[in-house]
């Protein structure tokens, strides 16, 4: 029997974002197979290497490591334990026993951006990021492209919550940023800000506007007020890694997953369906198909460190 494990990054496993998605993937696996897993939440930098080593020493495999900040450590530890399998989410380490899973967040963001542009009544949509780092710029950039794809002159406001990790956990500021954007005419906001997003959504509900969730499907949080969510299937990545290991089919290497691979997507469920017409849905699905087919090229912010395309 395999001994799977997960190491979450600093946000903690209930960050309502990708750590939590990793958690739900692992939980799903446990429920289906009954195989237990072990997990750990990093609370300071000093623990990363120690914990990863301890997992490896104790024979855990695969070790799923969530978060780009962990990449350097994975690189170190994976070298020392060539027989142990590692799965790194959101970053790339090129080693024969490491599977790196990165997501084309820009593609998912493009879709929700397009949908936002279709539904806005003021020709203005907003984006609120968490901490100001390249990964989040990538979301924002994809969103902007999607919105502009629908309407060239649309006004896309972008804000970042802050520059420290507390930016992931500041719903108050998230709410204020949202209000500021509403006051500037925005009526739909996409938040890629971890726990800060909760404040953004609440502000949208309070103001009678719409919000777009991120990472997991967050539509259920405020039924009828969440236009959609940009889902990033970290859970799937985690679960399938566990399953591959179980079946002895673990493959290392880079997995770049986008719309095509169902790695990212937009969420459509009973909570947001009432907001959308059949045309809307069709139009989004059409764009989705075009991206999958490569007819629409979505620029990745990280390629140029800017959102020029």
């Amino acid at each position, binding site marked *: 029997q395999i001994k799977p494990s997960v190491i979450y990054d600093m946000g903690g496993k209930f960050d309502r974002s990708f750590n939590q998605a990793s958690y739900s993937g692992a939980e799903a696996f446990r429920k289906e197979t009954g195989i237990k897993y072990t997990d750990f*939440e990093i609370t300071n*930098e000093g623990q990363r290497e120690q914990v990863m080593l*301890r997992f490896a020493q104790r024979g855990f495999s695969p070790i799923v490591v969530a978060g780009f900040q962990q990449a350097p450590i994975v690189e170190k530890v994976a070298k020392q334990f060539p027989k142990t399998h590692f799965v790194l989410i959101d970053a790339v380490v090129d080693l024969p026993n490491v599977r790196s899973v990165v997501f084309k967040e820009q593609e998912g963001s493009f879709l929700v951006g397009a949908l936002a542009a279709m539904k806005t009544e003021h020709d203005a949509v907003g984006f609120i990021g968490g*901490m100001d780092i390249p990964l989040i710029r990538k979301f924002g950039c994809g969103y902007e492209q999607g919105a502009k794809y629908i309407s060239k002159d649309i006004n896309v406001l972008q804000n970042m919550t802050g*520059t*420290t990790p507390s930016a992931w956990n500041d719903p108050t500021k998230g709410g204020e940023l949202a209000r500021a954007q509403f006051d500037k005419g925005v009526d739909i906001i996409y938040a890629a800000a971890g726990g800060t997003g909760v404040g953004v959504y609440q502000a949208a509900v309070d103001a009678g506007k719409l919000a777009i969730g991120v990472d997991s499907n967050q539509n259920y949080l405020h039924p009828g007020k969440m236009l959609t969510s940009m889902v990033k299937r970290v859970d799937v990545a985690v679960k399938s890694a566990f399953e591959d290991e179980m079946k002895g089919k673990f493959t290392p290497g880079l997995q770049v997953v986008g719309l095509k691979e169902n790695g990212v997507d937009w969420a459509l469920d009973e909570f947001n369906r009432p907001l959308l017409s059949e045309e809307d849905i069709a139009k989004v699905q059409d764009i989705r198909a075009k991206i999958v087919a490569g007819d629409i090229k979505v620029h990745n912010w990280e390629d140029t*460190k800017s959102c020029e395309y």
Partner: protein
Amino acid sequence: MSPILAESPRWVRIGLVPALQLALALVISSLVVLIIGEDPVQAFAIMIRGATNLEFGGFHSTLYYTTNFIFTGLAVALAFHAGLFNIGGEGQAYVAGLGIAIVCLLFDSTLSVWLMAPLVILASAAFGAIWGVIPGYLQAKRGSHIVVTTIMFNFIAMALMSYALVVHISPLGGNSTDSRYWNSDAVFPKWNEMMPDAPFSLLNPTLILALVCCWLVWLLVWRTRLGYAIRTVGSNPHAATYAGINASRTIIITMAISGALAGMMAVNEVYGAQGRLILNFTSGFGFMGIAVALMGRNHPFGVVLASLLFGALYQGGTELQFEISSINPQMVLVIQGLVVFFTGALDRLVRGPVEGAFLRYQLAKAKKAEAADAAVAGGN
């Protein structure tokens, strides 16, 4: 009646009383563990084993955390001697990390560890000192409350660091909030790299630097004229003026040294343990320095003991989380809070009765002797 009676024996004051206080804190912590439905005895056993075992490097990791606490604890303790409450250790260490990063980025491919280490230590001390000296200057010359300014400087340091790191230092194309690794020939080797048999840990030679700093601080405070001036300014500013000690100069110098000490924490993290600059690498160690200093009674030796205790708490907490995953990592914060409360704020609760008992015991002994004397003298 001899006035020496006013003090109880040393081992009671610095041994027995703190031990009892610690025990009390742990008893209350146990209640919290019980509330969340776990077994406190098992939990503490795991913590103790986790913090002291040699096999998995638990003890080594304890020492690694201890190194951080020694620096930030010393920084707070020294400032306290001058009557200054330096809450800015976090920011000072943070900015010092930037200093190290600059040195490493510039020279790590050309210099060996023997040249790099002194350079890095100097850089961290200098950057930390700058971040400490500004609030010190504002306090001394402008009367700006040092508590407020150091808090503000922590926030400013965060913004500065995030800008420097994300915009300038982190390697292009990467998605990271950390710098590249420093060239491994130019950084401190870790303990397990020097001792082939040792288990992995982040322990590195910075511990020696920390202990040397303890000794230096002791020397500074109790054997130098500057230290004398610092203590005078701290406990009686009027007497300082009377003695011709320039209080504002002393405050500024103290804050510079205090900042430098806090800054050297970055040597352990950025140069020793992580080998690269990471966003938020201080992880609250700067704040913990306050508790460490207070528990160590602002004495370098006490700081070492308190650092060991907190280091063990951190490492034990990691282990606890490892073994009992239903215990949230924040449990360690609760224990820390209680330890600080009982050993610091409620000092008298235990100290009063215990020391009182010893005093009464001594008094009774002295009385007996006195009575014997009086019998000879014939009373009064």
